[in-house]
């Protein structure tokens, strides 16, 4: 259930980034509130991940994974907020976003202990992890070419794809007809 809430957040994040890619950064930033919109949303998603970590995890490795996502989302969102406001000047802060992709992707792979076809959630953990690690090339390119429409669009669509994958998650469900008997009865 929490996955679906965060999926909605990532849809909004992806749509905002896609809009910025479409109209160009100069137009996007003409309104003061709008230039803080997606970095603020990313930061807020990081903040909201903390209660998820505290109340919705049931093992140490899940707690560490959710904690790492909270940290890297807050770091990436905060770095972008700092760069936009002018409080941060070094362009190296732009590397916080690709770092978030790589750390987030690695954490979701490492905290999944089952194989790909164990159940849908296991499959999605592997798929999301490798997708985010591969998609890190887009924020990395954006860090060095911030105005590139290609890299901006890549980041936006990566987040939309992430949202789709999170929306397909269930507590226990088969994936391509496979469901380990150890996973339990399908539900939700």
């Amino acid at each position, binding site marked *: 259930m929490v996955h679906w809430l965060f999926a909605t957040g990532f849809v909004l994040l992806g749509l905002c980034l*896609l809009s910025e890619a479409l109209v160009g950064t100069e*137009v*996007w930033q003409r309104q003061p509130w709008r230039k803080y919109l997606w970095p603020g949303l990313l930061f807020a998603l990081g903040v909201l991940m903390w209660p998820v970590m505290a109340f919705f995890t049931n093992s140490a490795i899940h707690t560490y994974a959710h904690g790492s996502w909270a940290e890297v989302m807050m770091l990436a969102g905060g770095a972008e907020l700092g760069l936009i406001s002018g409080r941060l000047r070094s362009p190296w802060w732009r590397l916080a976003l690709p770092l978030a992709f790589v750390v987030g992707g690695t954490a979701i792979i490492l905290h999944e202990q089952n194989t790909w076809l164990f159940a849908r959630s296991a499959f999605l953990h592997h798929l999301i992890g490798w997708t985010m690690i591969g998609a890190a090339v887009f924020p990395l390119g954006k860090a060095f070419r911030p105005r590139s429409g290609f890299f901006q669009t890549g980041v936006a669509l990566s987040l939309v794809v992430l949202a789709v994958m999170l929306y397909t998650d269930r507590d226990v469900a088969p994936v391509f007809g496979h469901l380990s008997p150890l996973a339990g009865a399908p539900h939700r």
Partner: protein
Amino acid sequence: MNSNIATHSTVELTYVRSARAFVLSLLGPLTIGAGVIWAIVQPWRLTLLHPHGQGFWWLVIEPPLLLAVAGAVFALVVARPLLAELDEARSRGDTVPGEQCAATG
């Protein structure tokens, strides 16, 4: 100066500008549409349709509705003001930097 080239560039820039505005205007409705289609294809995902025995959070968190709401919020809060600004800039004859870059490749 070759007037043919200048005319071609203006037409291309206008085309790109309108195409981008058109795509932007579609993002919200497409997201809402995706949520509605999802709700039709998988009606069991909407616990409001069969609320008996559902807990509070299962009734609040309805993924197809969340997606549709996200599309609506984006369309109203982000896309609509942005499109209005683009229209305003177009009526003033301003050059939009991002669009100019795209038009020139």
